[in-house]
């Protein structure tokens, strides 16, 4: 339905393909954004991820999944947002080794459940912990272009102020978009910050986000680490959000 050119479902067959790294941005002390140009890309749906496969000279391979943070925008490029896990295998490789001009093997887009299209409607409640923001940011950016009249609220929990991904953009969107409310909270920081709360996500925060919406959410999206998603889903259910309207994506960890 959309005016955007490249909304696409998961293809019938997912084939590995090279993607060129066209830009790298340091977003926070622990998060880098990698802009990729896949060789053969036909678009995606907000919320989807790609699989990444790294191959060593002797053939040894490692695979991981990364959500797409950019909106489906017809550019033929996608942004992956990678949080550094110190002891990890793949995220430190991205942070320490990958450079502009490298080719990385990917396949995708993947996902037919944790996705949102404008025709799916709203209101939307989005709840993100840490890098769980990534697919929900794709939803928010796409919504702002394709269906800005659909009400949305985002609860976003990070450890410290410096760990907030896309903080400036989120605060700007919250200020400019009358149909979008931001509930950002910092679990490990006490210094007061304009527009940002403190403490872990709790029932009161979910209630506040629900009150900001003109009607109960049609769909609630939860994304983040296992413990975060488990906690958030308990608060969402306790706040009366129907079970069947909640979609969750868990990153492990």
């Amino acid at each position, binding site marked *: 339905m959309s005016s955007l050119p490249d909304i696409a*479902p*998961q293809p*019938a*067959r*997912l084939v590995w393909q*090279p993607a060129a790294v066209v830009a790298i941005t340091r977003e926070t002390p622990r998060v880098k954004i990698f802009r990729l140009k896949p060789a053969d890309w036909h678009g995606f749906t907000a919320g989807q991820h790609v699989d990444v*496969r*790294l*191959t*060593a*000279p002797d053939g*040894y*391979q*490692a*695979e*991981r*999944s990364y959500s797409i943070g950019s909106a489906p925008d017809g550019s033929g490029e996608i942004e992956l947002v990678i949080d550094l896990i110190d002891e990890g*295998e793949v995220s430190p*490789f991205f942070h320490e*080794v*990958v450079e502009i001009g*490298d*080719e*990385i*093997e990917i396949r995708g887009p*993947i*996902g*037919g*459940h*944790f996705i949102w299209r404008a025709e799916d409607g709203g209101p939307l409640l989005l709840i993100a912990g840490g890098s769980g923001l990534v697919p929900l940011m794709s939803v928010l950016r796409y919504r702002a272009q394709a269906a800005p009249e659909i009400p949305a609220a985002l609860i976003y929990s990070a450890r410290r102020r410096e760990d907030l991904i896309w903080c400036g953009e989120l605060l700007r969107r919250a200020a400019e978009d009358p149909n979008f409310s931001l509930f950002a909270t910092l679990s490990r920081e006490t210094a007061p910050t304009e527009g940002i709360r403190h403490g872990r996500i709790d029932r009161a925060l979910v209630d506040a986000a629900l009150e900001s919406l003109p009607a109960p959410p049609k769909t609630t999206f*939860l994304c983040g680490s*296992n413990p975060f*998603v*488990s906690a958030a*889903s*308990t608060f*969402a*259910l306790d706040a009366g959000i129907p*079970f*069947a309207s*909640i*979609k*969750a994506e*868990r990153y*492990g*960890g």
Partner: protein
Amino acid sequence: MATRGFIGKRPTDGVGDRLPPGQYLTEDFPVLSAGPTPRVGLAEWRFTLKDGVRPVMSWDWEAFNRLPQSKLTRDIHCVTKWSKFNTAWSGVMVDDILAEAGIAAPSEWTLAHAYDGYTTNVPTEDLVGGKAMVATHFEGKPLIADHGGPARLLVPHLYFWKSAKWVNGLQFTRRDEAGFWELRGYHMRGDPWREQRFTGD
């Protein structure tokens, strides 16, 4: 295609051979599901065996736990890339459920149903012959809700989405009917050793 500069962290000896392609070993037990964890009380718990739309037999929690108890210790492999070795389960083998119901599997295809509305299709031959159980205990303790308790299907040789959490029934079907993830692009069988993650793999 070799990736510039990638060496990787090799699994230690004895681990690599037990890891299907694209998987890595974890010591944790991550939780995976498409939604929140449903709250299922033992008083209302039921497990129903169906042949098509016809119920063959149904058990409440007490009756189900009187069925013969078995143990399975197996490696498990999640399609999100983690594998976990030597997971120890106990519960009721699908073979014993069928024996108690007095039937042989009436079709080649089975659809597992769960309390959260989740379904997953499994070829019947992957469920019988000592391969699969309805697990009620993990490492000697009652299975917690986040991991599928009170009871989950356990089909350890297939990707773990086939091991439906919060299972409440097995239904034999005439055709291979796609379940929840299978309708959304995941593989109809899901053999990790053939890396059957998605349709077409």
